[in-house]
């Protein structure tokens, strides 16, 4: 094809992902060091094993393998009879041993798939494999990058945190799909209880992106392997969220299309996603064929896992739960969706729906609670310790002790903004049913006892209402809110 012809062709975007996910385990994958690294001083969560000291040996943390098998179950992957570890040999200053213990010919998961919804459509992406490996340490370059810095500090706290590398088939056709897939992947991992999205570096994404002639895309959306192999692709690194992935890949797809339009060839290279500038930048590294010299890690005997898939249970996953919420609680699609995005929200909803009206609870959890949290940039995890208070609030509404309006505008907001207890707010603000009944009684009494003032009011005499307010205030010992009293009086007088 001439360059001219190539320029004029329509192109389809082809994207495949390598997603590194930190698995939540108490201890690292090959030693007993804690993985709770939040606020930890550098190099304090280390031992001879994760520092790679001479003579230290890895011992497999089976909890990491269990987590991986659960993922395998969730993505319907096949689990091998035996899983094995290999050494991936390469030199880099964040690697304590200058090799990474990883998996090669017997990854823990193979041939899975993940379904997700994008713009109302169901899509499925193939998971070629998912394997376990150890996280390297982290580097801080002082005054530049690794080549230009004055010096570089190494922190080995992260070294040995269990990582799962999920490799997809090149099944994505645009950046929106990638984002939806990643959100779904996070959702599933979160449901399995093996992932903490709030942890720094918990999700790291490398993406391969290339363009192929639309003519080469078959009707069912597949593309021939040879065509894919021939297309020059770029590897985009340094993506750390699903939002970032969408932006980075939309940018990269456009960049490649522009290059082709101008008659230039897309260079096969590695590019770095610069989040702050919103562009991908060539790493300008000579793309040598990487040779990791994989070979068996003899220090770790093979592990029999053939029965694990059967033996390990996984919780109901988001899709199934969403469907059940519709059937069991009569919720609409949108509410069921909102209530099942995280397991914690779904569990909380079901807890409440067992006691109170499921519809009312759905409104309160899906709209009011999540809405107010979202507005404050918070998540359910931020009010984890106060779920009983929120339950009390829902109880107050369900038993009509307070009005929905007050519950939302005064109590919930007060709880989130000031950290107050719902009963305390109700008391302080006089929102309780008993208090309202008393006030109503005082208002009726004042009207009955002061027929002159009532007729003055109806004659349009401005002072009359103030007199009546004063009377009510007296009856309630001054505890009522004058504004509320005013409002109640007018309502009563207008009847």
């Amino acid at each position, binding site marked *: 094809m001439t360059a001219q012809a190539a320029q004029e062709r329509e192109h389809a975007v082809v994207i495949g992902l390598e997603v590194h996910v930190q698995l939540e385990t108490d201890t690292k994958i090959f030693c007993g060091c804690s993985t709770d690294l939040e606020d930890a001083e550098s190099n304090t969560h280390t031992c001879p094993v994760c520092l790679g*000291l001479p003579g230290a040996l890895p011992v497999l943390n089976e909890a990491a393998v269990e987590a991986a098998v659960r993922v395998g179950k969730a993505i319907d992957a096949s689990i091998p009879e035996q899983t094995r570890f290999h050494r991936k040999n390469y030199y880099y200053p964040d690697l304590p041993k200058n090799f990474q213990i990883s998996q090669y010919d017997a990854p823990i998961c193979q041939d899975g798939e993940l379904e997700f919804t994008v713009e109302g459509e169901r899509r499925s992406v193939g998971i070629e494999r998912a394997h376990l490996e150890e996280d390297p340490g982290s580097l801080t370059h002082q005054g530049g990058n690794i080549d230009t810095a004055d010096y570089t500090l190494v922190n080995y706290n992260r070294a040995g945190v269990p990582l799962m590398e999920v490799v997809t088939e090149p099944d994505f056709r645009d950046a929106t799909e990638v984002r939806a897939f990643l959100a779904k992947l996070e959702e599933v991992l979160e449901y399995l209880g093996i992932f903490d999205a709030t942890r720094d570096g918990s999700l790291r994404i490398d993406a391969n992106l290339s363009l192929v002639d639309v003519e080469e895309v078959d009707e069912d959306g597949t593309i021939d392997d040879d065509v894919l192999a021939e297309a020059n692709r770029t590897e985009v690194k340094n993506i750390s969220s699903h939002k970032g992935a969408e932006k980075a890949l939309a940018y990269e797809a456009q960049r490649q299309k522009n290059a082709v339009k101008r008659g230039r060839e897309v260079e096969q290279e590695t590019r770095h996603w610069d989040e702050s500038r919103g562009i991908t930048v060539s790493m300008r590294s000579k793309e040598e064929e990487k040779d990791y010299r994989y070979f068996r890690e003899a220090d770790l005997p093979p592990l029999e896992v053939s029965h694990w898939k059967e033996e390990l249970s996984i919780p109901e996953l988001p899709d199934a739960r969403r469907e059940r919420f519709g059937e069991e609680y009569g919720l609409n699609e949108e509410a069921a969706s909102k209530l099942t995005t995280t397991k914690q929200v779904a569990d909380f909803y079901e807890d409440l729906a067992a006691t109170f009206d499921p519809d009312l609870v759905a409104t309160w959890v899906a709209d009011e609670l999540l809405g107010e949290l979202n507005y404050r940039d918070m998540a359910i995890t931020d009010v984890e310790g106060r779920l009983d208070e929120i339950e009390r609030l829902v109880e107050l509404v369900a038993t009509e002790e307070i009005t929905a309006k007050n519950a939302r505008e005064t109590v919930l907001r007060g709880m989130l903004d000031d950290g107050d207890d719902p009963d305390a707010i109700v008391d302080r603000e006089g929102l309780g049913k008993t208090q309202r009944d008393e006030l109503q009684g005082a208002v009726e009494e004042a009207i009955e006892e002061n027929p002159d003032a009532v007729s003055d009011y109806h004659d349009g005499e401005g002072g009359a209402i103030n007199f009546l307010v004063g009377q009510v205030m007296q009856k309630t010992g001054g505890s009522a809110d004058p504004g509320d009293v005013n409002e109640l009086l007018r309502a009563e007088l207008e009847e």
Partner: protein
Amino acid sequence: MSYNAYITKEPIDGADDGPLAGRTVAVKDNISTDGVRTTAGSAMLEDYVPPYDATVVERLKAAGATIPGKTNMDEFGMGTTTETSNFGPTENPAAEGHVPGGSSGGSAAAVAAGEADLALGSDTGGSVRCPAAFCGVVGIKPTYGLVSRYGLIAYANSLEQIGPIAPTVEDAAELLEVIAGQDPNDATTRDATDEISGRTPDDDIRAYTFADAADGDVDGLEIGIPTELLAGADEDVVETFWDGIDELESKGASYHEVDLPSVEHAVEAYYVIAMSEASSNLARFDGVRYGRSGGYDGNWNETFARAREEGFGEEVKRRILLGTYALSAGYHDKYYKKAQDARAWVKQDFDSALEDADVLASPTMPVPPMERGESLDDPLKMYLADANTTPVNLANLPAISVPAGETDDGLPVGLQLVGPAFGERTIIRAGSALA
């Protein structure tokens, strides 16, 4: 005179009592000792002081042993003469002017010279048995998985075991009793009670007791003698070997010849596997935390290269380069994979030979101790000297080297007895009839 058996002499005291109380056990300098520098014979680790004890060191201390110091060795265990040490060669106390064997030459020399009652070495392809043979003492290479490697600076981790060196078989067995047994820090250690095998399995391995097997009783012992392991040996050595077999026969043992066709490829397979593993095991020594760091021009990659160029000796560099090559794309199948196939074949050969024999006997080394400096210039000659010891590591089996006598020139000759997996008691019993 000084034999230069030690790299570091810094006594480490053990518990007040225990089975080794009052005895000194010298420890090879690739076995980590908390607070006492551990060099593996290399300039790269000249200043490295481990913050932890190897499991075997913990066990020695708990058994009441005193560790008088850390013994000399070929750099990272890569040698058969202890001449590749960065800390100078070790003299052979049993044959002065000759090498003590390697790579645990310091440990064997310390025992032979009486500078320690007992010693620990490590055996990747003969590194305990060779120096034991050359220095006229006893050395045991245990079954892979009997003794913890936690804290042993790896050379070739799928092949090596820590083993005892002692004046007598009984002493060696006592030391083995202290260091053997499963270790939660080494996933390759195995429960011997599940693994016992062999023609006449000795149940007492279940208790991990070894010393009581050194009773010299070889009545009814069936010895297999692999003809291949005699073919390449010096005449002098073979003659002394047969003296040893005669003695066993006079005590009630009998022998027959066996074929081990696979051993022809053992040395090649051994070196490909050992060097490949070494290229990876030694990658961590990059100047950041070990060896000379900083002061070099260039980026991190160039800095790593300079630190490694400066910190490693010739033989280590040779093996890392060959190992890297053998694992490289395009060569991996031709070398590394083929070597693994050969390893499986060797294992099979030994297992079937051990169906009709309790032990397999051969000279430990095909040659008597070389004169110092003789083999350094010819690495291939040095590698071929491992012909009889390396197959045993490939097969993961236990073996003992006991003194069989001396050549006409008065040089020590060792006799090697190989047993079935976890058949330590069998080789100890057989060996104790000679030493």
